[in-house]
């Protein structure tokens, strides 16, 4: 069974702090996506990384794909209450269909004003 692990499972920080969450697997992915899910809503795509070592920035969020394409990290600078939510990573084993995508269990982030 292919697994995608995320750490930490829960994170509670003060507004303005920095944080990093991790997504790890023993499998190699063709691409990896990060989603954010707010309570009572569906996940919303933040970014897709494709190339090993790739770094993408989305305002205060920095995403990195590991060189071996087995892991990824999400770093948030100066966290704000609006960053609160469940962060999910999803790894794709094939390029052509989401039936070959697995989701991690998520990191639940709470940013306290």
């Amino acid at each position: 069974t292919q697994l995608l692990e995320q750490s930490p499972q829960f994170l509670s920080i003060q507004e303005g702090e920095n944080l990093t969450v991790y997504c790890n697997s023993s499998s190699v992915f063709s691409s990896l996506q990060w989603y954010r899910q707010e309570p009572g809503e569906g996940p919303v795509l933040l970014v897709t990384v494709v190339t090993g070592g790739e770094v993408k920035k989305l305002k205060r969020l920095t995403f990195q794909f590991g060189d071996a394409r087995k892991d990824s990290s999400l770093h948030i600078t100066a966290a704000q209450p609006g960053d609160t939510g469940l962060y999910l990573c999803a790894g794709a084993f094939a390029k052509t269909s989401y039936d070959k995508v697995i989701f991690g269990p998520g990191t639940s982030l709470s940013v306290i004003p």
Partner: protein
Amino acid sequence: NAGVTQTPKFRILKIGQSMTLQCAQDMNHNYMYWYRQDPGMGLKLIYYSVGAGITDKGEVPNGYNVSRSTTEDFPLRLELAAPSQTSVYFCASSYSPGPPGAIYNSPLHFGNGTRLTVT
């Protein structure tokens, strides 16, 4: 443009009852998916469809059925509900990845979910 719409938002079923979860999208996406989300377990794919009239099983299809008679609609049927089917169900859609064949060109669009409790 409503995106992906799921109904109902909440439902309580007794063991052995049946129900249909509705999903509709207005983005003309070919691909549609049903996932379930359980605490600490991530999203698991139940069924998916690559176009009207075509459906296929995902990772956890047992106890569920789907149909895809139109591009817009992808209902999920639960027959003989069991407590193990207590979960939050999400419908999603995407464009066909197509050549050059990369899902990163075709992100998933999710609905807001149906919270189902079977008692």
